[in-house]
């Protein structure tokens, strides 16, 4: 295990989180088309950073930095990592960030069509998940877990609950991204998508809540699992409060003369916290798969 590789993977994950915040600012400030050309900005690499050009081009510069860091990580893994599948994941991450850059360019070239903008926002979260996963896989606690591998306790397998939680969070992120990009700050949010996102929040709370409860009841002595579960629980609560606050602020913004705080920071925080909930859940999921095994016949028994 290389500490250097792990620390670098953490750096890339951290930089990606910062990029998610930068991207969310672009949307909340309605800066998406402040730079109408791509990949250059007004035909230059470094335009005058005034008005919303600061946010849009600033986010492109952060994205470029993340792209360079991801290249470096992929090469670093290729050189220092012994596990072939981790090396491959490094190159998959690189493919993801390149695709994300191209999607970003497409949003500009096509004047922010909803489907492309929502896909850009969703892929950002999936790329973040990949960088977090790389940080997990290169950690000492993954390579040498502090507890022995054991059979899952009776009942609905925790691994299944974790995958289900990840899935509903992803669907909720897609709904949230589509909702955010379906109306600018001076327009009311479409009722159908809004209700769908609220329903999604309830489902995520129930499913992730059940997952966390399972961890805390069946594996309460195992910090390896309870720690990410408790972090996910805390983040989920914060996210629910941010969601309510974001809705209130966003409902009032059509009356404002321009995008203003608190609407900007609360909607950005809601996006960022959603990414952290996703990240905490993937850490829990990966760790659950690392140390828990299911007997071959267990699913057959459950079906019978």
């Amino acid at each position, binding site marked *: 295990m290389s500490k250097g590789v792990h620390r670098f993977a953490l750096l890339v994950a951290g930089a990606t989180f910062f990029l998610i915040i930068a991207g969310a600012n672009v949307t909340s400030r309605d800066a998406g088309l402040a730079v109408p050309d791509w990949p250059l900005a007004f035909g230059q690499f470094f335009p005058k950073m005034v008005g919303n050009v600061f946010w849009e081009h600033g986010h492109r510069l952060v994205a470029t930095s993340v792209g360079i860091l991801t290249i470096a990580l992929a090469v670093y893994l290729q050189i220092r990592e012994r596990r072939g599948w981790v090396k491959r994941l490094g190159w998959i991450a690189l493919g993801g960030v390149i695709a994300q850059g191209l999607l970003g360019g497409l949003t500009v070239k096509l004047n922010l069509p909803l*489907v492309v903008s929502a896909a850009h926002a969703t892929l950002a979260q999936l790329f973040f998940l990949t960088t977090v996963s790389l940080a997990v896989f290169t950690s000492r606690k993954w390579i040498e877990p502090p507890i022995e591998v054991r059979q899952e306790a009776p009942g609905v397998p925790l691994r299944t609950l974790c995958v289900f939680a990840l899935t509903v969070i992803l669907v909720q992120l897609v709904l949230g991204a589509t909702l955010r990009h379906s109306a600018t700050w001076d327009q009311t949010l479409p009722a159908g998508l809004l209700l769908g996102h609220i329903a999604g929040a309830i489902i995520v709370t129930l499913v992730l809540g059940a997952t966390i409860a399972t961890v805390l009841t069946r594996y309460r002595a195992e910090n390896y699992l309870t720690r990410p579960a408790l972090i996910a629980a805390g983040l989920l609560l914060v996210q629910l409060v941010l969601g309510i606050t974001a809705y209130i602020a966003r409902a009032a913004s059509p009356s404002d003369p*321009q995008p203003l705080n608190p609407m900007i920071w609360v909607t950005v925080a809601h996006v960022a916290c959603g990414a952290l909930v996703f990240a905490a859940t993937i850490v829990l999921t990966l760790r659950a*798969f690392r140390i828990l095994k299911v007997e071959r016949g267990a699913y057959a028994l459950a079906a019978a």
Partner: protein
Amino acid sequence: MFSKSARLWLGLIAAASLLSLASSCSNKEPEPGPGGPEGKAYTSKGDEGTISGKISFTGAAPEAKKIDTSADAACTSKSPNLMTEDWAVKDGKLANTFIYIKEGTLADNSKIGDYTFTAPSAAATLDQTGCHYKPHVVGVVVNQNISITNSDPTTHNIHFMPANNPDWNQSQVNGAAALTHKMAHAEVLVPVKCNQHPWMKSYVGVMKSPFFAVSAEDGSFTIKGVPPGKYTVVAWHEGGAKGTEKTMEVTVPAKGAATADFAFGASAALSGQPSSLPMLPALEVPMPMKH
């Protein structure tokens, strides 16, 4: 690492999500907008009249809000006290109201929508000055040119966001030549904004006929060259999220003048009663090319 069934579920959910997004896209043709299908060219008979009136505002007018222009020093320097202009009320009179003939029947029982009108050769103008658009509301006939200029010491970006016409987004540096744009489909009203300075807003009414006007500072307006007949006249004003409309039936006598006075009130300003502007349907996800 993941079991086969977990991988299968993840893949199915991802595919279902993508399919649901893709299937909700539709190749929606632009709606024709008010004015109806193509028809015969209108020829003046010399008996046209006018519709004129005043737009008033009853009750306490919403206060203009101060705009924070600190993000661009050039804007602060040229317009240190920039205020919103969505409700420009002076002595109880309301400016920037778009008044137009929506439909009607001429004296010879033909419909106004049966006719086509030649776009004026002179371009309408839209200037970016002091980091706001001048005029705030403007009307054009379909295919009439709009000449866009930048009189500010900063770069602007002009983004037309129509529902019935293609999206149009261009940047324009200080001192650049005028840009020209036109729209081929009638639409009431097309919002225009600057993505660099998000407080900048303008509205363009694209009409099939030249029978429209924008109220002045004193609330007055005049629509000239109206054939004698009975018409539905609409006064549209921005406000809230959707804008507000008032409608009136007006009879224009041959070579005569008809009056149409409209009143907007404080209740309309605050509630933003729905207008006939198209809104994004709640469950539809627009296809690429439309936002």
